[in-house]
């Protein structure tokens, strides 16, 4: 089929150094690589996305990337209604040839590596996971991180906390919870959140670990190193460009909707960011582990449930 225009729809502005920005940037890069036009619809919120989708379909988009798990009911319905191909997330079973394809994104392998790295580098023997909510992709990364930590050193304690009701933009809550987790002994924080993650970073920057050392932060999805003040350890970086490019190519080749897409360590669509804070030796060991995962010697299964995460973290006696 002819593909001349694609569209990406995101719930928030594409300037969050995270999920939305990575999506928008990748869609732009994929469009450029494949020579198609792109419509960017940012900040559509988590409510009913049918209205903008219908309109974008009417505007001539050939593929709509509905880049939020909240859009995965509306997406297929609109594809059915308008006949325009739609890509959705977090719905591995939702495939309709020519119309609906899923790209379930999970950086659990990357998070696993981050966990290994964290366990190597912690000096207090405790690491923390702070999240602003419990969507599946975050659960799978939290679980991956926890598994990595345990695999590296079963004695390292893992603390887990979800911020609170106003979480996504609750920067103050992010700061407060992270401060508590640091006070409980963590010196490396694996943080996932939108606006609230900046509160976590602020807490990491302004608190010392219980042993007096600096606290380090592990971010996800985006790359915040240009904002870093020396506390960013790494980031589990996602790059959706290969995914989106493949979608466009598939659509052109009439193969869209026959299979799902995902990101992986193998093609660097999931990778760890190296910062000056990373210990060289630890990094080399982690990179070796990466090869093992790619080779299939280490298996990391995604776990999407919040209970799975809680089962992995340390329960105080």
């Amino acid at each position: 089929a002819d593909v001349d225009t694609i569209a990406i729809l995101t719930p928030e502005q594409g300037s969050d150094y995270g999920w939305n920005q990575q999506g928008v940037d990748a869609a732009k890069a994929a469009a450029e690589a494949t020579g198609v036009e792109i419509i960017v619809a940012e900040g559509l919120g988590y409510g009913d996305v049918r209205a903008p989708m219908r309109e974008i379909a009417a505007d001539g988009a050939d593929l709509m990337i509905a880049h939020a798990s909240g859009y995965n009911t509306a997406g297929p319905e609109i594809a059915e209604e308008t006949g325009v191909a739609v890509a959705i997330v977090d719905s591995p079973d939702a495939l309709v040839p020519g119309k609906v394809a899923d790209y379930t994104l999970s950086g659990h392998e990357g998070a696993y590596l981050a966990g290994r790295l964290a366990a190597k580098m912690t000096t207090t023997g405790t690491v923390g996971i702070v999240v602003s909510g419990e969507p599946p992709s975050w659960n799978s990364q939290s679980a991956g991180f926890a598994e990595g930590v345990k695999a590296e050193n079963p004695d390292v304690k893992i603390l887990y906390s979800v911020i609170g009701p106003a979480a996504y933009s609750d920067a103050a809550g992010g700061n407060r919870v992270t401060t508590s987790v640091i006070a409980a002994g963590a010196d490396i924080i694996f943080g996932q959140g939108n606006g609230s993650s900046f509160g976590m970073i602020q807490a990491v920057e302004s608190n010392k670990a219980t042993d007096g050392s600096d606290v380090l932060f592990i971010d996800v999805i985006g790359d915040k190193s240009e904002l870093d003040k020396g506390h960013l350890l790494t980031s589990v970086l996602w790059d959706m460009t290969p995914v989106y490019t493949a979608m466009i190519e598939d659509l052109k080749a009439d193969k869209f909707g026959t299979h799902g897409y995902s990101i992986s360590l193998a093609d660097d669509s999931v990778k760890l960011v190296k910062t000056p804070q990373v210990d060289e030796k630890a990094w080399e060991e982690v990179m070796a582990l990466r090869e093992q995962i790619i080779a299939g010697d280490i298996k990391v299964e995604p776990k999407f449930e919040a209970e799975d995460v809680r089962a992995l973290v340390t329960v105080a006696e």
Partner: protein
Amino acid sequence: MGGLLTEAFLSSLFTGAIVAAIPMLLAGLGEQMSEKAGVLNIGIEGMMLMGAYMGFLVAFKTESLWLGFLGGILGGVLVAIVMAVLCVRLGLNQIVIGIGLTLGVEGLTALLHHFQFSRTYPRLPAPERLNIPGLTDLPVIGPSLFGRHLIVYLALIAVAVLAYLYRRTNLGMTLRAAGERPAALDVAGGNVLGIRVFATLFTGGMAGLGGAYLANIGAGLFIPFMTGGAGFIGIVLAMLARGRPLWVLIGSLIFGAALSMTTALQVAGSNIPTDVIQMLPFAAVMLVLVLFGRRAKLPSALGAAYERGAR
């Protein structure tokens, strides 16, 4: 839970409770004055958010937290001026305007944030803490109670000052008269609109300060929608406190402690689902309401505009 109940952790929970409580305390104290005077200030959420934005902007540009707090107060007062003109002077409906102002400030600050900060996400340095030798070194409560930024103590002093003013000067009775029977205050030569305007602006200032605290001390940066309902909690605290500043303090500390407890339970690895844990603070308030709600007597003229000579 022995392993986790370290001194540092307990201390951070106390700290967390106080950090979470201060913005609600400031907002609650402000709202309390409006409510006494008969103005139901639903716009407080917007005033707080504007305070957070302005507070952060000024602190960031001037690199002075204190100027930032002033900026926050100014931001809150600016929104309150609109409210005072429209609702107190012109007598427009307080609910409509309050909601309108909150929505407008949410949109405006998000817009400004988008154009100013969304590519850089500037953050403030960690706030200075007041170090009182001896006290700050006390175990557990030392750092949480005594190692805070000076503004925390000012907020506590505000509780005492307001309690004093309400009790010992004519301020308390003037406010109550304006909220209870504005016509009586008017014919006694008092200035109903004046005191209501003052109370509204005071609310704006306190809410703005609370917002600035949230941004500058609580988070260290500004994020759109970051107040997330703290202003509404302030309204509830003010209504429950029956006109007493001390009760606003107690209420905000309990609420802050409940929020902090949700972290504690999770960090301790509790098996209760997170969503259930997070209902606790609100469930606690509901429980208080069920048990003691009937005593939360509100001023008779709350929410009603005053117009001289109208019947």
